[in-house]
């Protein structure tokens, strides 16, 4: 997480005419979120969450739109967005499988779970399937140590996992709505 070097000079921002921050999102920000904070920048994390929810990732253009809406510079928004692991600054799969690799999970059989996902999807940790359906990552402790090993598939936590559960969970995720 710590140290991402930004290609400031060579970065090209892909543009599209239609704004990412829709009128509806702006209204929600203005009416529900912004009054909660003494300064507009306080709404930055919620705004980034909003865009990420809608598109599955946060394009540069969206960051510039958020910056303008919150009265910040695009650089400030990028600085914050690039710090947090949950924000994807590049497109990812429609579904994210995040296996916990921290202390309780590793020593209660996490490797077999990661391996089962790798085998089922034919990808390694950090990769996305060719059809763009799944991205596999490993995360630190998910706060589910008592029911280790655990994994998040999109927003749903799966506990007490066994390798045999993996194909079914992936099938169910695929049927559910993703990004």
């Amino acid at each position, binding site marked *: *997480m*710590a*140290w991402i070097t930004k290609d400031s000079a060579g970065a090209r921002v892909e543009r599209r005419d239609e704004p990412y921050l829709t009128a509806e999102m702006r209204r929600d920000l203005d009416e529900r979120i912004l009054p*909660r*904070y*003494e*300064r507009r*920048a*306080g*709404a*930055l*994390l*919620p705004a*980034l*969450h909003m865009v990420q929810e809608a598109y599955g990732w946060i394009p540069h253009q969206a960051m510039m739109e958020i910056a303008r809406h*919150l009265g*910040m510079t695009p650089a*400030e928004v990028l*600085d*914050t967005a690039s*710090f*947090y*692991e*949950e*924000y994807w600054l590049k497109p990812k799969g429609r579904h994210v499988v995040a296996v916990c*690799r*921290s*202390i*309780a999970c*590793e*020593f*209660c059989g996490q490797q077999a779970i990661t391996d089962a996902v790798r085998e089922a999807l034919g990808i390694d940790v950090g990769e996305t399937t060719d059809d763009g359906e799944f991205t596999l990552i490993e*995360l*630190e*402790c*998910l*706060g*589910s*140590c*008592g*029911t*280790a090993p655990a994994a*998040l598939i999109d*927003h*749903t*936590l799966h506990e007490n996992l066994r390798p045999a559960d993996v194909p079914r969970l992936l099938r169910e995720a695929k049927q559910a709505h993703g990004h």
Partner: protein
Amino acid sequence: MGKTKYDGTPRHVLCQRIPTPPFGRFEDRHVVRYDEYVRTGGYEALRKALSMKPDAVTEEVKKSMLRGRGGAGFPTGLKWTFLPKVEAGTDPGPRYLAVNADESEPGTFKDRLLMDYDPHLMLEGIAICCYACRLSRAYIFIRGEYHHQAMVVEEAIREAYANGIFGEKGLVNSAANTGGERFVVDCHLHRGAGAYICGEETGLLEALEGKRGWPRIKPPFPAVKGLFGRPTIINNVETLAHLPLILGEGAAAFMAQGVESTVGGPPSYGTKLMGVSGHVNRPGCYEFELGIPLRTLVEEHCGGMRNGKKFKAAIPGGVSMGILDTDQYEAELDFDIGRKHNVLGLGTACPTVFDEDTDMVAVARNIARFFKHESCGQCTPCREGSGWLYQLLCRIEEGHAKTRDLDLALEIATSMGTMPGTTICGLADGNNWAVRTIMNKFRDEFERRVERTAVPVKMTIGAGAKG
């Protein structure tokens, strides 16, 4: 003077409405909504608090000697008194409460229990704290991965607003109804986005301000200059959840639980949520009085060690705390533990337990990887040291290291965080304690994994020997 030893009787305070062994079954847990909460005595303590002067509420909390449940064990009432004083009847301007619901320390899953099942207990604590400290707004900073908990808490906040706990209008908030001071408090949920360091209290404030979660240099302390430069109190979810008991039944009721210090330190009063994980038969989140020995917790309440294996080691409460050795199974889980058992402290009191088959080199490597991944990168000893430590431990685990690498690893660990002022926050210190205590307490295991550093000795034997 309370007791100095755990008396063996389970008592539930935080889990009154959350079925928990030995009084209830994990399977029977359900979300307690506003109606059920009130029906079972909820928000009575808030009403009582509102009939008192704010300073009297703070006094009661100070008297109880409640200590923070977020990891550091700082006395809660004392922290509150660091706020600038407010003259009665004057408006001090915005003052904030930041509720630490970031819960990302590996091995820790206790605040989650309250947010999963009894969110109003936390909200009542928040309301009491805001009244006592004259805070105008509370932000619950919840980690991004807690999607389900965020939903439950959002719904509970909505119920609390609808019933006049928070906001301008309602039954509880008018001074006329209660006899105390005016009480108008806002409460909002703020979701994190996957960064352990936002659990550090000033990193959390930065995230609330829309910045990267870089811990701040202190002083100024948050109580004086915190969120948006305003006076701010930061408390853990579980700390706040204790307030309804302390106000409702009085400090003495709280102090009747837990134990006195036996090493001349401050006492460990009250109960504690204890999330037990690892190689035990019935892992899960329990509630016991502080002072319960780890062995009692595991053997009597968690069904003992899994597969009939022997106990080898445990982390007392989050990986930052270091490790308890095989012969420290009797360690009492209270705030004395650091001084008695050569660990950093009690931490979150969520033990992760390892059986005899556990590879301690792998444990150290796992923890070092965590810290390398989560170092925020501001301080050189932490940013660089955590990377080197992880590399060295990988090398030791893979069998490519030499004896001198053990000393090098220890030297790096020791040099990060122990010297005051070289790092901004406690993350580096946690890294140091974790790696150092594992390497020292299980030194032989590490030595078996490394190649002896051979010192070449010139020797010529036999026929070719000259002179």
